[in-house]
């Protein structure tokens, strides 16, 4: 759509020979050149030492911290599970109080989901993906670091609450009214702490999607990229559509908790079911969000142990994409007993059964690969085998539960507990541990113990079945979930005792595994470079470790380059391929085109900094202080967080480069700057805004949901938003958008003065529009009924977004004044106008809903 205008850009185009010929690649690199290049590269990518180590933003460091933090949270949540099981070992036990028990099971579920499963996927991907793609690093290293520090702060805050007897206690799905009316800060800790972490998750998703799309090595077309990358792309997309509804739900929920706006209170027109919908639109895809990347690990391990390419590559892509879509059609199967029309239940039952097809396809593709290969039963493969066995069991009970009449019987019993643990252990925990054993040589340049690994496997595998297999029976015999104790004589006693014993055996297995992971390995001999004889790029890593990611970025022509391109390893090491050097002393990685991975740009990436921690800390304050209703410090923190982020963007992103293009190796000259959709920043903005638009759509969905569920929405004689002011707001915001767009075009045509004028006027129009919007609802009392409350919520949403939009306009204005934004180097204003496209759409939809709905409904 905008291509012709992009082409008028004065930025240079890639030039030089591509793809490289065999003769070019065969030409040796002189030894002294190679050494000098390696030395410069080593210096640029060096990990900071001493206290400054914590400023590192390298994917290898951040990924490790991320994984370890998620592991610690998992162990804590596991200890909670042990306490739960200890309490349930005997009937009428009084080991812990009912209140404590409620906190424990709520935190166990919340922590396992939000502090372990999803962050673990992101942690592993940040750690492994650049290696698999032969990239130096992710496109936005500081964003990963920011995400990590947010996760750490939020996680410690949420999980720490249990030590102060203040943890949430209404179940990990926080159903209102139980959770809305709960005394104490528990529910707020859950809502704000986890919203904060979700923001970090979305940041990581953006990073991972852009990394997969734009940072593949030259030649790695979409049909030959590692399956793990396909899964990351699908899961990243799912996060963008699944998490925002929960964030919108949290927003409404917190407004109800803090200001008594009755979104979920039926007495004032609200509806608790809206929360269930928003929660499960997130909650069900979530299960697949953690399942798919874990099974992706299996897709990397299986070809290696079978010593042949995976069978049915396209079929696995089909199942990843297919599962990604179908998993969104399942959310109501968590709500089968809420009294929805039977025909609606039918749709969701059907979709739940349909998702079995793609899920089954990938399992069969794995089995086929193993059958036709020459399998070496390595330790990682043992864990994968265990995973397939356990996951299949969980899948079978899933098919049972997807049938609405069966679900009516088994609903909220231990049968469900058994089912979900089978799918999560088989679908996530086992494959991830397999991945730890498999990738440990890549991550730490050491091997884990074969003997300890087998002990851990059998302890966890047997303990797991001992714990959860009997729960199918306890459930079918009627034992409800979430009860803190039970009377004797109902046939549950023996089964519960067995489950408790099993839980402690699992814990022993984990102790062995963790010991293996953390025991000192200094005296262990240096490992081989590619100990499993795998075929994918991450195994070209340097042993002993180098922080540069990859010595030079290769030209890839097959799915298993190490098997099919035998000279590749030596050429990478020699610096024969792309970007073998860091002449300007800048960290760089190669950016390629989305589908065919043709090199298009040398991307400068950010280096170590404290500013990311500062930004994360203040963002944390902005989320955490409101938990205790301390609003002034929260506002101060929010302002400081914005300042930190602006400083960080200003000093290190989209800087005018010292030369418009540079030699990328093998005779190829690439631009050092890109704007518009050639740039990674534009893609990041586009992807973020898709997620943001989903959250907004969820709010609008809420409005129409109340209309269907409540006979009196809007109530008789209700006050409406002032239509004239709503119209004015729409006009103001639309004009602000038009001026932003105009500024971009004028700037591109060298009319810099006019562009600056546009950027100077646009914020006033946005502010005016927002003022009109707020005035239009000013007289409405949001505590009285859900109708004024939802109008207020929409107005607040638009106000906050317009605020961000104004900051962006002023940022561009300042950029233009101080020479950061020029007619040639104009990435910032492209990204800002993209933001405003979404913003103007949201504003106009809001105005339509507010202004027109009273007349239409």
């Amino acid at each position, binding site marked *: 759509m905008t*291509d*012709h205008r992009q*082409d008028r850009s004065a930025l240079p185009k890639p030039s030089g020979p591509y793809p490289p010929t065999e003769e070019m690649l065969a030409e040796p690199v002189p030894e002294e050149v190679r050494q000098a290049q390696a030395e410069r590269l080593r210096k640029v990518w060096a990990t900071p030492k001493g206290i400054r180590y914590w400023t590192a933003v390298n994917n290898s460091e951040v990924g490790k911290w991320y994984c370890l933090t998620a592991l610690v949270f998992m162990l804590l949540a596991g200890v909670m599970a042990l306490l739960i099981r200890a309490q349930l070992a005997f009937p009428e036990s009084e080991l812990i109080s009912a209140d404590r028990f409620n906190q424990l099971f709520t935190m166990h579920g919340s922590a396992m989901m939000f502090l372990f499963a999803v962050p673990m996927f992101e942690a592993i991907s940040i750690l492994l993906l650049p290696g698999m793609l032969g990239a130096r690093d992710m496109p936005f290293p500081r964003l990963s670091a920011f995400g990590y520090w947010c996760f750490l702060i939020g996680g410690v805050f949420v999980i720490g609450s249990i030590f102060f007897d203040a943890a949430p206690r209404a179940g990990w799905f926080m159903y209102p009214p139980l959770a809305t009316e709960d005394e104490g800060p528990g529910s707020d800790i859950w809502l704000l702490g986890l919203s904060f972490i979700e923001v970090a998750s979305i940041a990581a998703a953006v990073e991972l999607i852009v990394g997969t799309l734009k940072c593949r090595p030259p*030649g*790695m*077309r*979409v*049909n*030959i990229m590692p399956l793990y990358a396909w899964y990351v792309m699908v899961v990243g997309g799912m996060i963008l559509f699944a998490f925002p509804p929960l964030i919108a739900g949290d927003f409404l929920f917190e407004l109800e908790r803090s200001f008594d706006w009755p979104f979920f209170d039926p007495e004032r027109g609200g509806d608790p079911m809206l929360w269930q919908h928003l929660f499960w639109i997130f909650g069900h895809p979530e299960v697949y969000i953690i399942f798919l990347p874990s099974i992706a690990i299996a897709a990397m391990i299986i070809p290696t142990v079978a010593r042949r*390419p995976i069978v049915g*590559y*396209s*079929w696995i*892509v*089909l199942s990843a*994409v*297919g599962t*990604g*879509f*179908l998993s*969104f*059609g399942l959310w109501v199967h968590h709500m089968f007993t809420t009294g*929805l*029309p*039977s*025909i*609606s*239940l*039918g*749709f*969701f*039952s*059907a*979709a739940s*059964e*349909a998702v079995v*097809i*793609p899920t089954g396809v990938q399992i069969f593709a794995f089995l086929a690969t193993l059958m036709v290969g020459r399998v070496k039963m390595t330790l990682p493969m043992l864990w994968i085998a265990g995973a397939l066995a356990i996951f299949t069991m969980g899948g079978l009970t899933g098919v049972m539960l997807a049938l609405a009449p069966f679900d009516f019987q088994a609903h909220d019993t231990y049968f469900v507990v058994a089912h979900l643990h089978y799918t999560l252990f088989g679908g996530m925990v086992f494959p991830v541990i397999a991945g730890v054993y498999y990738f440990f040589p890549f991550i730490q340049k050491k091997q884990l113990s074969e003997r300890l690994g087998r002990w851990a496997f059998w302890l966890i595998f047997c303990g797991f079945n001992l714990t959860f297999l009997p729960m199918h029976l306890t459930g079918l015999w009627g034992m409800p979930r979430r009860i803190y104790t039970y009377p004797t004589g109902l046939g549950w006693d023996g089964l519960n005792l067995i489950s408790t014993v099993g839980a402690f055996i699992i814990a022993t297995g984990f102790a062995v595994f963790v010991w293996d992971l953390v025991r000192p390995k200094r005296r262990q001999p240096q490992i081989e470079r590619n100990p499993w004889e795998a075929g994918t790029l991450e195994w070209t890593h340097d042993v002993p470790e180098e922080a540069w990611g990859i010595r030079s970025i290769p030209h*890839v*022509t*097959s*799915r298993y380059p190490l098997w099919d391109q035998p000279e590749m390893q030596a050429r990478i090491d020699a610096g024969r391929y792309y970007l073998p050097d860091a002449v300007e002393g800048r960290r760089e990685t190669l950016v390629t*085109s*989305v*589908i*065919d991975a043709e090199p298009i740009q040398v991307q400068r990436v950010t280096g170590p900094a404290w500013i990311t921690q500062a930004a994360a800390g203040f963002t944390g304050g902005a989320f955490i202080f409101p938990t205790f209703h301390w609003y002034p410090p929260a506002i101060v923190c929010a302002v400081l967080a914005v300042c930190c982020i602006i400083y960080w963007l200003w000093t290190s992103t989209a800087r005018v480069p010292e030369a418009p293009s540079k030699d990328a190796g093998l005779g190829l000259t690439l631009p050092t700057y890109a704007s518009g959709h050639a740039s990674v920043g534009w893609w990041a903005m586009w992807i973020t805004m898709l997620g943001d638009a989903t959250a907004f759509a969820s709010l609008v969905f809420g409005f129409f949901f109340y209309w*269907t*569920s409540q006979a009196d929405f809007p109530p008789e004689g209700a006050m409406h938003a002032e239509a004239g002011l709503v119209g004015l707001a729409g006009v103001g915001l639309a004009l602000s958008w038009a001026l932003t767009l105009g500024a971009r075009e004028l700037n591109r045509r060298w009319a810099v003065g006019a562009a600056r004028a546009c950027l100077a006027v646009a914020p006033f129009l946005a502010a005016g529009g927002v003022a009109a919007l707020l005035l239009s609802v000013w007289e409405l009392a949001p505590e009285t009924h859900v109708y004024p409350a939802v109008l207020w919520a929409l107005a607040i949403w638009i106000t906050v977004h317009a605020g961000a939009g104004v900051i962006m306009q002023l940022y561009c204005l300042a950029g233009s004044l101080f020479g950061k934004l020029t007619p040639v180097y104009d990435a910032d204003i492209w990204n800002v106008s993209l933001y405003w496209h979404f913003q103007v759409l949201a504003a106009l939809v809001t105005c339509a809903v507010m202004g027109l709905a009273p007349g239409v409904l």
Partner: protein
Amino acid sequence: MSERKEQLEEFAEERASLLKITTGPLIWAIHFVICYGLVAVNCAKGWDIGMARTGLLVFSVGALVAIVWVGWGSWRQWNLHETGDYFNSWGRAEDRHHFLGHAAFLLAIISFLGVVFVSLPLVMLGGCS
């Protein structure tokens, strides 16, 4: 000029292809949302469910036809008959082109089944109860 045009065409093909593999599932998703939304509103407002059912069944047939059309296009793009290549595992433009056809074709099959599954309750279940 001709070089620029070539670049534009390639970019257009890039975008079309990536979109194309999700066309089948997107049709499923739209079909699903419309079925669920329409029935939910009908039941909540006590409107005539019979009309909605008939309308949605016709719509289902339309969705299936659309998926078959997508599937046919992607079958031709996969071009198995002429190339005889099931795997497309090399980094050639042609392999990539065929691979995207193959993936889109398989996704069309899944989407077809998904639409059939979701339409079954419309045929088999009475109404709102």
